[in-house]
């Protein structure tokens, strides 16, 4: 009996001193990086941006567009150099236009100066990398697109570990121009009707607004009603003045008269 009692006491004493705080180890994986997808929808075209030199004065010859990137798998323990390459894809998510040319429309990604900014910084879960766009004269006649993806660098791997087919990886798109270009938000069901450059120029002149994607995105339904009402009336007035001067009514390059829908939003 006494042996049992001693045994029980020993078990009890061991139990008292057996618990101690132990730090839970954090499992560090290999570092990965990709462009940041705010929607978590697993899209291929993760981000879309536009840059139009049309709204800048003539002294502006280049501009920088930043794309967000996200660290995956680990928190960077040091600065990681990011490698970006052109992505050759014909995805339906892209607007149909010619690809921009490196060195003509944008600073090449292997440019030493640019490389210094292609960094996922230490401790940063989210960061950003630049695309430096050049204001080439050709952009006045034709818009271009820059489609890029992240590739493996010496420091960090692309989160898209697909074979380098371009067709399977995530990418971002930047549309550039130096003239009026159809905003991505101006679709076939846009409240101002079919797109035309002359119409686009007309509404910019008559509202002093950019009518780019950012502005279009900010419109509420009543503001749309206001703009449609305003443009219809002012177009009618402008056409009256043109006719009085012997000019034809306002038309697009293809000869189609500029018109706005009759039905309000």
């Amino acid at each position: 009996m006494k042996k049992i009692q001693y045994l029980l006491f020993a078990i009890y004493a061991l139990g008292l001193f057996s618990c101690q705080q132990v730090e839970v180890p954090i499992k560090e994986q290999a570092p990965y990086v990709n462009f940041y997808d705010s929607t978590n929808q697993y899209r291929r075209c993760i981000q879309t941006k536009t840059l139009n030199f049309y709204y800048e004065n003539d002294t502006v010859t280049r501009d920088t567009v930043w794309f967000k990137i996200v660290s995956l798998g680990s928190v960077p323990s040091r600065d990681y150099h990011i490698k970006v390459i052109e992505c050759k894809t014909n995805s339906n998510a892209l607007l149909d236009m010619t690809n921009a040319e490196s060195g003509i429309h944008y600073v090449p990604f292997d440019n030493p100066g640019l490389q210094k900014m292609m960094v996922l910084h230490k401790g940063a879960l989210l960061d950003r990398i630049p695309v430096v766009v050049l204001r080439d004269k050709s952009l006045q006649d034709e818009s271009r697109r820059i489609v890029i993806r992240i590739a493996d660098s010496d420091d960090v791997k692309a989160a898209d570990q697909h074979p380098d087919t371009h067709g399977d990886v995530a990418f971002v798109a930047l549309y550039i121009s130096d003239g009026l270009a159809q905003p991505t938000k101006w679709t076939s069901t846009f409240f101002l009707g079919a797109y035309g450059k002359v119409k686009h120029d007309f509404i910019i002149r008559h509202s002093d607004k950019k009518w780019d994607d950012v502005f279009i995105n900010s419109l509420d339904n009543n503001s749309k009603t206001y703009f449609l009402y305003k443009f219809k009336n002012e177009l009618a007035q402008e056409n009256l003045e043109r006719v009085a001067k012997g000019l034809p009514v306002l038309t697009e390059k293809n000869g189609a008269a500029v018109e706005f829908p009759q039905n309000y939003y």
Partner: protein
Amino acid sequence: MKKIIFYLMALLLMNIAGSCKYGYDDVSNALPDIQINNVTEPGVVPSQLFLGDTLKVTPKIVYGTDASAKFGFRWYKQYSSALKLISEDPSLAYRLDSLGTWTLRLEVTNKQTQVTSSATVGFSVISHSERGWYILKETTDGNTDMDLVRMTEAGAVDGVELNVLGNTGNTLPGKPMSMSFVYNYNWKAPGTSYFTSYISTIMPVSQKGLATFRMRDERVLISNKSLFFDDNDGNNNALTGGISSPLQSIIINNGKAHLMIQGMQAFLPAIPGNYSLSPYLTTSNTSGSYMLGFDELSHSFVYISSKASAISYFPDRYLPLNCKISSNRMNGTVSFMENTDGTINPDTLYSQRAYAMFHETDRTDRCILLGLDLAQVDPLQSLYGATKYSPVMYADTISYDKYPAMKTATTFAMHKNYPLLYFAQGNQLNSYLIDNKTIRQGLVTYSAGEEITYMHFAECVYDTKNFRNLIVATYNPSNATYKVYRYTVAGNDIIQVGDPFTGKGKVKSLIYSAPNYSYWNNNVYRNY
């Protein structure tokens, strides 16, 4: 060891056997229900209460025959998916601190048995300022403000609040011009990114400013330039008037019309064209009615449809048996126009018409009382109306030699149920019976210092207690005060209702507000 185990097992068995002994009586001793009285019964809590009032409820608890039982009380205010404890007292005394529909829940718990019973009661809380007379006035310094005479549901005066615009620093610059009710105003509160719709407001308009005033909390939401979409508008205001229909509101600025569709937050740019609208506008009783107005440039009656891109004119086409008077190029101006019930077109049964006082440019010895068929501004009247014909269906030449009182008439108002025109001369109220062409002078004569500045036949059909009152406002310049008289009209008898409202300033317009905004909106044509 075996003995120890044996004794332990025996002890355990004995405990099990004796554990259920005291449960035998449970089935036969049922607990009484807790009855909560004097909470949900009709009349205990009114269906409608006022913001700021203290709700007092004293429930009566009945618990079988046991009068000594003790209870705990928990009063909750119920939200859509949550309960908020507001009191643990046996009687509730709670200040109603927000507008809208309230649901209160009472839980009563027997402290001994912990049995709980509950009761729920609902009611609506409205503002004191949602029912009453809003008086648009010219202040002593020539600007515009509003007074509010609050009314109870039973129709008694419930207090006065003066200068409701000025109290919040929102006095409008310039003299008052008009006041209208906007049922569905859309507003984005400062600091938010979303609009709130169906805000019912009053829109006072002065020569140089305008505002949207939410009656529920007496708050000016937006005023002046912010009430125009276009940055070019609202800079040099010369506002002359405006009205509202269930479809849209209109204001006239520098002679041009601006529209605000119901559900919008601001006025659209001016309707283009070469015109100058007079401040006199009216509508028919159809919810989709156009607005009838008068263009002072072309001297023509015009109509304005919803989201109109132009002022429209009536054709020179005439229904049979009418006066064949064109509504275009009439060579004169309009000094009054209001709608009333009744048919003016003998070929139809359309029971809405308007009368306008017309003054020819080259005549000073007479005026013409025009009768207008409002079917012409009713888009649903596709056969005999809907802008197909001239709206002028009646013309009564009023010679000043024969009716000298009309020459000096300053203010007019139509009876809203039959063709009786009230007009004022100084401090005297008169009437002109249109069908018989007879004048009655001196229906009411006010004191020598009082001048009639405003008249309107207010027909309220949108409150729990409706009324028909002829409203007459006077102004005494010696002490810069106004009086507002209300009368019931029965045949030739005009009977004053209650005491006149008084205040400082000169009345330009009045509007009666009632909490049933939707119904008010359906009957807003009565204002014009």
